[in-house]
């Protein structure tokens, strides 16, 4: 490298810098000038003109755009001003015009030299065409010259001054404008910088209808007239706190267009069915209208009510919701009601005001609805006060608020009746129903026997409560140890589940269960029996009359070709008369059924008698359902046919059928009379037994009487016995009278008994005993009463014997008659059998013999018919066999008469078989009748029990004798003597023996299939207690009382045993059967339009079931029970 070269390049670099500086000036100065011009122009415009936001925005945009363009232009210019080394050399050389290319040449020479140097170093030799020295010299010369050149002059460019001027002028303008603008200048600058801060451009906006009061439901068209903007108008409506906008549509209605002013555009929006106040405004471009209000003129009013009741939990009722026309509330106390009122428009505030209580309940508001939570506590009147958004007030109501109190339950006892007898099995079936408006929770039984403190038992407890509850409770009464004549008072109670005011209890009226004496029961039967017999006698009379009439009618009709109207009427009347007879028979059958049930359930009557009554009832039912009905049907057929021949035939048939009915009714009457007699005997027997029991009890009380006063108090009982004795005498007299034609021996017995009971004998002795008691003469009274006891015992035995004797004699007589009848029939059959084997007799002889036998058979049949009037043991198959025999005999006679030997023989044979069968049936019936009583072993049990009662009586007397204070020597009162211990042991052993005897009898009865002695198990337990007392040497009042109870039960037991449990229909069902029923099931009418519970209760009746349906409900419950029982 040569130094010249370096110097040259150094000078060229100075030239480059100068040139760059010039390029920069040439670029920047115009930029600044133009920019300043722009700014000045903008400022001037902004200051001079009224500009709005849009203008400023444009202005700013223009300035920014101009600036950007200037920068781009400047950059472009700078790039364009860039020079190469050659150009720089030329530009520098131009400073010396004569040698302007010297520097360029020098530069090129340097480059050649560089190339040569690069090549030489590569080849190692210099370029042959040029001298390097020369070149270096040239370069040096050029370098020298370059050093002399005024490079600063390169900076200058021709328009520099002009541009400076322009720029300065522009700046001056800007400054001047700014100065002139004064305070606006910064504002304008700020608006240019931020056009948003500038005001908007003014837009003309008109809105119709603006604010307005409208009717509810009106439709309003909002129109916007916009001038000065093309922007579409928007409607903003206030929804709560927010504004909701919607673009308005173009208005095309002429009216709207006509209303537009020049330059205005018209937009509109339809607000339909406005019910609420509405606030709105319209916006178009930057312009916005003021806020307008469309005010609905109407006050809020109720359009409907919805009520929801949430009932107290204890009622067990599901919440209920309903629509209502008013805001009346009615519900059980404690209910929570929710009252919702739907409104015609929104309410700003809603309050429920209790007019009486003054309570205020704020309502919850919704869209056109207000709701109130109303607790139902007491009756009130309520008003709903509403205020609309404008503060206007509207009151709804007043409405009734009805707090329905929980009424106490009602109790109905369907069975037993108010006073009823205890059934023989010592149970009572209580069928009771209870109703409560909200549900029965408990069924109670409160009872007491004698003077005991009343006890309360819960029969049934219902967890959830039931509005209607029926229970059937089989109440075991054995534990009450009732004696004949005693009674239990009881009430059935129902408890509701009122949790608001506390449970309420209702008790039924007090009812009584009597433990009747057998005499009472039997006495009550007498009247019923008489009535039944009278009814049947009427029926018999009617049936006979009808029979006669039908016969006459048949005769008349048979003679005429056509039936007259009168004849038809008569036939019709006959049919009607028959229906009446049927009704009467049915009534009698029902009477019998009732009395059989009554007797069967009571302890009084023996099973045989009940069985007889039942059989009679069946007999009557058969008469009603077969004979009479068949006769009626035939008549009715005849009436339908209306053909005289048919009617005549039907009337004849009617007569035949009626014959059967008449016979059966006659038989029933006879049997009833017989039963009546047996019942009277039974009653006499029972009365005798009761008298004996009472006398024993009286004697015992007398023995225990400690003072004369106590003895005196017993005089009334003795008087009562005397009265009974008089009654018994009257009964015996009656019996003797009626027995005169029936049984001489029984009549004689009755007369003797009557004599004994007469005023001169037993009654007189009773009077004496009574007098002694009244005078307090205990010893004398005891002596007399002991004698009376013996006499009554004898009388009882004699009465029993009379009854048994009567029954046995009757039975034997009947057995004899039945046997004779069987023998008669067998004789006839025997002769017929001989006929069958007879090969010699002619057919005519056979016919004759057969005819004779037929007559004999008819006679025998008549006798059997007579027997059947006296006993029920003759079964229908006997009559059927005899009927068959007669028919075959008749047939045989006919065949023989027609010389038909074979047919005749067949008839004879068949009749023989039928007669044999009839005889078999008769003998079987006879055996059944005779074996009816003894086969049960009842008599033996009775005798054993009577014997045990005697033993117990003796033991009781011994105990009484050993009681402290009873006949003890002086000084020993209140204490047992030394030898008494041994006696007590002996007595304990005796008591044990009695107990074992009782257990044996009980077992025997059990084996016989019967109920063991009418629940005598507790008596055996009592006996054990006495045994223990005696063995332990305890002899107190308790022991004596216990023995007395034992004796009473033993005395009563034979009656119970003899008339032991007998009822095919009754079924023991221990425990409580419960039936719940809803009121809806009570009657179809109730179901048809079942009111709401609230309205049902609001009716205010005490019983939720109206009186109209009460009977139906009771019947319904009863039927449910019956079904349950099955």
């Amino acid at each position, binding site marked *: 490298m040569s130094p010249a070269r370096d110097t040259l390049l150094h000078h060229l670099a100075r030239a480059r810098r100068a040139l760059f500086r010039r390029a920069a000036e040439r670029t920047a100065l115009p930029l600044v000038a133009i920019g300043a011009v722009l700014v000045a122009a903008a400022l001037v415009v902004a200051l001079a003109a009224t500009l709005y936001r849009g203008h400023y925005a444009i202005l700013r945009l223009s300035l920014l755009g101009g600036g950007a363009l200037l920068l781009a232009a400047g950059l472009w210019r700078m790039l364009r001003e860039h020079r190469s080394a050659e150009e720089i050399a030329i530009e520098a050389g131009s400073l010396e015009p004569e040698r302007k290319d010297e520097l360029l040449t020098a530069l090129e020479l340097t480059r050649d030299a560089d190339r040569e140097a690069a090549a030489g170093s590569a080849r190692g030799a210099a370029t042959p065409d040029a001298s390097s020295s020369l070149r270096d010299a040239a370069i040096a010369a050029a370098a020298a010259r370059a050093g002399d050149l005024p490079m600063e002059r390169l900076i200058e460019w021709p328009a520099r001054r002009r541009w400076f001027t322009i720029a300065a002028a522009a700046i001056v303008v800007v400054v001047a404008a700014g100065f002139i603008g004064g305070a606006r200048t910064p504002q304008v600058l700020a608006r240019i910088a931020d056009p948003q801060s500038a005001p908007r451009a003014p837009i003309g906006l008109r809105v119709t209808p603006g604010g307005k009061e409208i009717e509810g439901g009106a439709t309003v068209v909002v129109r916007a007239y916009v001038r000065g903007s093309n922007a579409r108008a928007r409607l903003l409506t206030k929804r709560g706190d927010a504004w909701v906008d919607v673009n308005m549509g173009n208005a095309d209605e002429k009216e709207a267009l006509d209303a537009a002013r020049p330059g205005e555009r018209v937009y509109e929006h339809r607000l339909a069915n406005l019910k609420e106040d509405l606030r709105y405004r319209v916006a178009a471009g930057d312009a916005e209208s003021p806020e307008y209000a469309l005010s609905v003129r109407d006050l809020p009013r109720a359009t409907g009510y919805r009520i929801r009741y949430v009932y107290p939990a204890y009622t067990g009722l599901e919440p209920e919701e309903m629509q209502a026309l008013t805001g009346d509330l009615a519900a059980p106390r404690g209910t929570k009601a929710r009252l919702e009122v739907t409104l015609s428009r929104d309410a700003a505030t809603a309050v429920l005001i209790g007019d009486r209580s003054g309570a205020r309940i704020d309502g919850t508001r919704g869209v056109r609805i207000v709701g109130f939570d109303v607790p139902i506590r007491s009756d009130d009147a309520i008003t709903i006060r509403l205020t609309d958004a404008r503060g206007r007030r509207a009151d709804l109501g007043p409405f009734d608020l009805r707090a329905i109190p929980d009424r106490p339950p009602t109790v109905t006892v369907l069975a037993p009746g108010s006073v009823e007898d205890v059934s023989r099995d010592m149970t009572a079936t209580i069928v009771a129903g209870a109703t409560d408006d909200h549900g029965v929770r408990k069924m109670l039984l409160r009872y007491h026997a004698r003077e005991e403190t009343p006890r309360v038992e819960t029969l049934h407890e219902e967890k959830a409560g039931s509005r209607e509850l029926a229970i059937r409770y089989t109440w075991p009464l054995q534990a009450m140890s009732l004696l004949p004549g005693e009674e239990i008072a009881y009430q059935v109670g129902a408890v509701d589940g009122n949790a608001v005011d506390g449970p309420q209890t209702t008790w039924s009226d007090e009812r009584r269960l009597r433990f009747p004496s057998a005499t009472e029961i039997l006495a009550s039967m007498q009247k019923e029996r008489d009535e039944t017999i009278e009814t049947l006698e009427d029926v018999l009379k009617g049936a006979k009359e009808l029979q006669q009439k039908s016969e006459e009618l048949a005769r008349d009709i048979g003679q005429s070709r056509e039936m007259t109207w009168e004849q038809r009427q008569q036939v019709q009347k006959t049919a009607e008369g028959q229906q009446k007879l049927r009704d009467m028979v049915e009534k009698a059958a029902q009477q019998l059924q009732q009395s059989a049930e009554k007797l069967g359930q009571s302890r009084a009557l023996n099973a045989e008698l009940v069985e007889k009554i039942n059989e009679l009832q069946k007999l009557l039912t058969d008469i009603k359902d077969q004979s009479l009905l068949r006769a009626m049907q035939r008549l009715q057929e005849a009436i339908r046919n209306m053909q005289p021949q048919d009617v005549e035939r039907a009337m004849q048939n009617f007569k035949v059928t009626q014959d059967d009915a008449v016979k059966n009714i006659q038989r029933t009457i006879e049997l009833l009379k017989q039963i009546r007699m047996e019942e009277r005997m039974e009653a006499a027997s029972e009365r005798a037994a009761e008298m004996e029991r009472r006398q024993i009890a009286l004697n015992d009380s007398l023995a225990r009487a400690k003072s004369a006063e106590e003895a005196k108090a017993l005089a009334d009982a003795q008087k009562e016995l005397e009265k009974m004795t008089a009654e018994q005498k009257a009964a015996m007299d009656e019996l003797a009278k009626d027995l005169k034609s029936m049984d001489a021996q029984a009549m004689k017995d009755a007369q003797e008994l009557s004599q004994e009971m007469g005023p001169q004998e037993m009654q007189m002795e009773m009077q004496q005993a009574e007098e002694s008691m009244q005078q307090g003469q205990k010893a004398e009274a005891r002596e007399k009463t002991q004698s009376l006891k013996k006499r009554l015992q004898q009388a009882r035995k004699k009465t029993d014997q009379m009854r048994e004797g009567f029954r046995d004699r009757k039975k034997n007589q009947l057995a004899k008659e039945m046997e004779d009848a069987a023998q008669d029939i067998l004789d006839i059959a025997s002769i017929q*059998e001989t006929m*069958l084997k007879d090969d010699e007799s002619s057919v005519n002889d056979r016919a004759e*013999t057969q005819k*004779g036998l037929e007559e*004999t058979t008819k006679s025998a049949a008549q006798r059997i018919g007579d027997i059947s009037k006296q006993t029920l043991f003759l079964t229908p198959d006997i009559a059927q066999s005899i009927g068959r025999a007669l028919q075959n005999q008749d047939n045989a006679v006919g065949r023989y008469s027609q010389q038909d030997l074979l047919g005749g*023989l067949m008839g004879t044979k068949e009749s023989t078989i039928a007669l044999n069968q009839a005889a078999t049936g008769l003998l079987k019936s006879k055996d059944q009748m005779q074996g009816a009583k003894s086969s049960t072993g009842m008599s033996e049990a009775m005798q054993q029990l009577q014997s045990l009662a005697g033993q117990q009586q003796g033991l009781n007397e011994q105990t009484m004798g050993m009681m402290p204070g009873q006949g003890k020597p002086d000084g020993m009162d209140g204490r047992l003597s030394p030898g008494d211990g041994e006696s007590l042991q002996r007595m304990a052993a005796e008591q044990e023996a009695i107990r074992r005897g009782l257990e044996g009898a009980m077992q025997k009865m059990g084996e016989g299939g019967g109920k063991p002695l009418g629940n005598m198990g507790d008596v055996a337990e009592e006996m054990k207690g006495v045994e223990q007392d005696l063995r332990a040497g305890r002899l107190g009042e308790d022991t004596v009382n216990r023995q007395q109870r034992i004796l009473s039960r033993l005395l009563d037991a034979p009656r119970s045993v003899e008339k032991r449990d007998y009822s095919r229909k009754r079924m023991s069902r221990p425990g409580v059967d419960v039936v719940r029923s809803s009121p809806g099931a009570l009657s179809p009418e109730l179901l048809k339009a079942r009111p709401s519970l609230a309205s049902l209760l609001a009716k205010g009746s005490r019983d939720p079931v109206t009186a109209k349906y009460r009977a139906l409900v009771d019947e319904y419950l009863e039927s449910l029970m019956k079904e349950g029982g099955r």
Partner: protein
Amino acid sequence: MIRPRPHGALRRSPAALAVAAAVAGVLAVAAGASGAPAPKKDDPPAKPKVTISSPNAGIIVLPPGGEEEDEDATDSLLQSLPRTYQALVRRFGTMSPADSMGDGAYQWAEAAFKAGKFDEASKAYGDFARRYPRNLKVNDALSLTLLIKEARDFEDQPLLLFARGRAYRDGGKVDSAITMLTAAAQRFPGAKVRHHVHLMLAEMARDRGDHASALRWAVAGADSVGRNRIAPFALRIAAESSMDLGEPPQKALAYYKEILERYPRSPIAPEARARSLEIRKKMPQ
């Protein structure tokens, strides 16, 4: 009334009976076709040499005798075909299996009765009557039941004698029967079964043609003292025997009259009435 039972039965099966009936029918037709002599009107009514009954399950009962007699009977059957045919038709036409169903049970009861086991017999008769109501022996069974019930006296001795006598009679040993029953009548004249004894003796005497004895026993049987169901039957035999003895008809008429007066309800009464009328007609006015 206790009737005599057939005896000496030759038993054949029902099938054999049916075959016999069929054969009889064919023979009858053949006889008619071949012009077999029909019985003349004047001929006395021939005593049936063959009696056919149905006491034992539809068995043809022939008179007792050996095999030769059987052959004779068969011959006589052929000879008296029309009458026998009639009898066969009569019997078979009225017979049915039920008539004899339960005969075994009856025989068992009979055996007990004859053996003097009266309680057992009574029960067996009763069972038989209940179980086989269509058997024609039910009548006898029931009659014997009643007899057993009412005639238990003198430690059952009279009843036992009666039972044995009846057994002999049913077995065809009439002499033994008479001996036995006569002994009973003599040893226990007050026995309750005496009327039955008398009646049976009367019947046997009548059957033997000993009308005097028959009359005597019948009159004894018609004892009017006490309860006597046999009396009408005894009186009828008495009346018949009296007529057979050739006594004046008034006597027989008196017996019949007694039946009608004392026992108007008896099945014998109609017959007695008819016989009375016949006698009256025959009596000279």
